[in-house]
């Protein structure tokens, strides 16, 4: 996979112990997602974006930790909260912003919008606006990889709300029966739209996978190093033919369910939000670690920030300037 700035990923094969350069690349990628999403919020606030968007801010360590353990031709599927996954798998901010604005230059020629970024070039099978809607697709991609005899792995991202959809269990059952190379990554940010997971989720989340014989791991979703390490192991396992896995990542979304969800106190406290934004922010946690371990100094990190900021700014400008598709395009692409 490529990083957000387009450099090819030098890893020929997943490494279990990444070096400092790798951690720094992950830092850059996480920050890129953060800054991308801040621009999205801006676009919404300035009424430049049609519709709504669901920001990934706060959850960056999951997408980045996982996708850094994948190859370019490995597959992912994503969700309504999907910008982070798509960027981490190598999408270009230019075409992402253009997609969000409904421009022809965007992924999907303006037809998909925020919730449907898809890109064969980076193995992105598509974000999905149906909760758990892509579980079948990811499992099918893993089936296909095994059938075709490749070592491609499929990663299926979803929120803990998807645990409510029965199809998830149907897929995990088949994945385990047939030992398919698929990793179900559950991003547990504790909330569906406006309801806490304790009101919607009985029993134990990870047990919902192990009940089907699916190997499960739980990880701190704010710790990109931990996410990456465990994913790398699960990817190896899947490539070896040992079958599917379920990775429960505990995380948090800093913003509302979507950009318009501003008054949130009826479902979660400001105090809780503050705690996660300060003590548990994945980017801060990584930058502190990088500095503490002398993998980077503050100046380096500031430079990365400045570079990305200007990159995102330019990407937004590209998207704003890009033309809309002409109306006659509406009836194209229905059938292949």
């Amino acid at each position, binding site marked *: 996979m490529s990083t957000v700035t387009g450099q090819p990923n030098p890893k020929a094969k997943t490494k279990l112990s990444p070096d400092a350069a790798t951690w720094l690349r992950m830092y850059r990628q996480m920050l890129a997602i953060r800054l991308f999403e801040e621009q999205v919020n801006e676009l919404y606030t300035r009424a430049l974006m*049609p519709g709504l968007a669901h920001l990934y801010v706060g959850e960056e360590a999951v997408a980045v930790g996982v996708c850094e353990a994948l190859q370019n031709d490995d597959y992912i599927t994503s969700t309504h909260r999907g910008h982070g996954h798509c960027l981490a798998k190598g999408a270009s901010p230019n075409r992402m912003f253009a997609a969000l604005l409904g421009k022809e230059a965007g992924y999907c020629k*303006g037809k998909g919008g925020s919730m*449907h970024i898809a890109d064969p070039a980076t193995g992105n099978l598509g974000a999905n606006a149906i909760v758990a809607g892509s579980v079948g697709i990811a499992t099918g991609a893993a089936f296909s990889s095994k059938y075709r005899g490749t070592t491609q792995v499929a990663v299926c991202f979803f929120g803990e709300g998807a645990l409510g959809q*029965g199809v998830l269990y149907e897929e995990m059952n088949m994945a385990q029966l047939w030992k398919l190379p698929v990793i179900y990554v559950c991003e547990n940010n504790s909330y569906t739209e*406006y309801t806490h997971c304790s009101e*919607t989720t009985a029993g134990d989340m990870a047990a919902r996978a192990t009940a089907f014989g699916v190997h499960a791991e739980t990880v701190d979703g704010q710790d990109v190093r931990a996410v990456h390490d465990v994913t790398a192991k699960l990817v190896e396992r899947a490539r070896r033919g040992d079958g599917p896995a379920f990775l429960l990542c505990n995380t948090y979304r800093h913003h509302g369910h979507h950009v318009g969800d501003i008054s949130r106190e009826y479902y979660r406290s400001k105090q809780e939000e503050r705690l996660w934004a300060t003590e548990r922010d994945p980017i801060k946690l990584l930058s502190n670690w990088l500095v503490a371990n002398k993998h980077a100094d503050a100046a380096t990190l500031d430079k990365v920030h400045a570079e990305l900021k200007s990159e995102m700014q330019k990407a937004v400008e590209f998207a704003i300037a890009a033309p809309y*598709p002409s109306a006659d395009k*509406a009836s194209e692409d*229905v059938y292949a």
Partner: protein
Amino acid sequence: MPDTNTREITFAEAVREALAEEMRRDARVFILGEDVAEAGTPFKVLSGLVEEFGTKRVVDTPISEAGFTGLAVGAAMTGLRPVVDIMFGDFITLTMDQMANQAAKVHYMSGGKWRVPMVMRTTLGAARRSAAQHSQSLHAWFSHVPGLKVVLPSTPYDAKGLLKTAIRDENPVVFFEDKMMFKMKGPVPAEEYTIPLGVADVKREGDDITLVATSSMVQVALGAAGLLEEIGVSAEVIDPRTTWPLDEKTLVDSVKKTSRAIVIDEGYGRYGVTAEIAAVIAEGAFHYLDAPVKRMGAMHVPIPFSPPLEDVTLPTERSVFDVARALCNRS
């Protein structure tokens, strides 16, 4: 419509009033769905209900559309009157087994012994820049299933009166609300009233052409009727209000009078609601028609996200006007 004590309220308020009144009247009525309680749904249609009725009767569910719809079927069979909330009409895909194979058939398969008095409230309509999985109008599917009734209110007044009737009905009823209409205001009497299912409403009288329009398309048809008036064409606008039962007589009688008809519905045009209604009119008013019955629905494409693309997929006042004008041989 009684015109004493009539207030202007929004479509969302009308729905909420209907629910609150029926919940006060009948302790068996309860609401089940995602984010229906404290959040009052993303559209805020249910705001305040949990405060009055508590979480026993306004129940937040997991994201399990099949699961809680099925649960509602069983609750309805055993003495309750569930009102199920399916946030976006696109998600009825997940409930088709519970609705078509269970809810719709229980009464018949049991030889009339078990009943399923439940309501599913859901949405239809595009134009919110929500793309293909959050913009569909899939009421044709349910209209095709014997055992279900299907309601498509187009005004706050109709929404309130029809929803109250739907809740009191002994059968499974699916109630489609246009997402774009929630903030639309209209006159609604303060006193209680209900509207029977299966009675079309003449939204505007006219002589030259009948515009049969449902839900979101009623305002479009009324707008087109206004434009037509400017060129001397008098359009009658009829809202069937329920696709099943369908008030065939009112539709056919109108076309017998006007001799021309356009059927307008926001579902996909192909194999959609417009086909049935057009076929009914073409047969019932066969000897009176001066021109073929025209149909206008959503373009036969998944709804695109990009505004200039989405906008061309839907009938508009102008496109209805153009078709009507051509049909009436005006230039």
